């Protein structure tokens, strides 16, 4: 790809960098206890927690770094950090 004049780039390119590979622990969400408050999604520094069409909150593991913030902020203790087997 030719360089863009002035070290410039259009949006979306960071999406190519799948930071999920950094993860050591993975958040596991329990839809049974989740009250759909959305607090986890609000605080995720990656912005990678989504509400699915079924109204379930889940992380996009392509980007989730496993930081554990969602686990800490969830009022229902619906998120558990699990050592990831790779």
């Amino acid at each position: 790809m030719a360089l863009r004049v002035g070290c410039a780039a259009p949006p979306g390119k960071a999406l190519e960098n799948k930071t999920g590979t950094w993860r050591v622990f993975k958040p596991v969400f329990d839809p049974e206890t989740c009250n759909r408050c959305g607090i986890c999604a609000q605080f995720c520094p990656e912005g990678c927690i989504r509400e699915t069409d079924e109204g379930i909150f889940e992380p996009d593991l392509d980007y989730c770094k496993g930081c554990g913030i969602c686990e800490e902020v969830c009022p229902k203790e619906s998120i558990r950090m699990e050592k990831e087997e790779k």
Partner: protein
Amino acid sequence: MLEIMEGSHAVAEIVKRCRPQVIAAYPITPQTHIVEALAQMVADCELDADYITVESEFSALSACLGASAAGSRVYSATTSQGLALMFEVCFNVAGLRQPVVMTIANRSLGAPLSIWNDQQDSISLRDSGWLQLYAEDNQEAVDLHMIAYRVCEDHDVLLPAFVCFDGYVLTHTYEPVSIPTQEEVDAYLPAFNPYQRLDANNPLSFGMYATPDYYMEFRYEIDQAQHRAKEVFAKAGREFAEQFERDYSAPVEGYRLEDADTAILAMGSICGTVKDAIDEMRDAGKKVGLLKIRMFRPFPADEIADALKGVSTVAVLDRNISLGSGGAVGTEVKAALSGSGTAVYDYIVALGGRDIRKKDIAGIVDLAEEGRGDMFYGLRTEVL
């Protein structure tokens, strides 16, 4: 129509006609008359620009960078300490490929503090990616501003430029100049058409950081753009000549060089004195000529070598010094002529406003012909 006016006012008049939308500048002698005049034009609604009264030169150029990136034509002017304070921003503006045009009212750099003229300031930024043009007189200073905007904004170039003219010697001198009318300038210089800009309708990230995988390529591209600027400058100069009948299309210009044995190389207003000295030496039968360097960046090495074919001795007048090495122009001219058999001698002259007279020029020619050079010329040895 020729009018007699101060160099600074002549430059302000042409800058006005180039229609910058944003001006950001900080006062410093001997640049002040230019920016004061522009501020007045804005105050009088003669110039529809935003004049940002920044708190420093560092912010002046930073603000120009922002305005240019947002898609406005911009202008600034500075000199000496002010330019030194801009050092970091200068590299950044070039790296971000913003076509900023800035007048340099050339002045020496402290310490010791000196408000007088030499070319140490702009020359010290020779590696920054800015085009550097040097005017011999106020007419040339005026005209080079129009040409600079044309060249810088050309999408094959997209680089900033210094238009340099000597502090006091030109900035504060009244000379007859012809200031093109607004219609003439508009005909020569189209409205700014940014290559890309900060725009919510087409969001881009500007000035990202480059890992070792990319940095060198970005620097290479800036260098390539510098080289392309030569061609673009020649074209812009030819079109200027067609419209205004003043020809600046060559990056170097010879004076009585045709059959010269010895050539003097110089930049800026000193060329006037050199020409007078050459006329006298010619009258006395000496075959001497001048090669004036109009464009120092990109460096016209080939054009210099070409122009000096057949000359056996070259004396370079350097109004700067790379301390611990030599004059910057001399060093590059030596490189340009290496292997040609031409002897090149460098003379550090007229620093910090020191006068240089016709007899000094003749003295330098004598020294060069004796094979003595690479020295300061005109030192007051009695105070050393």
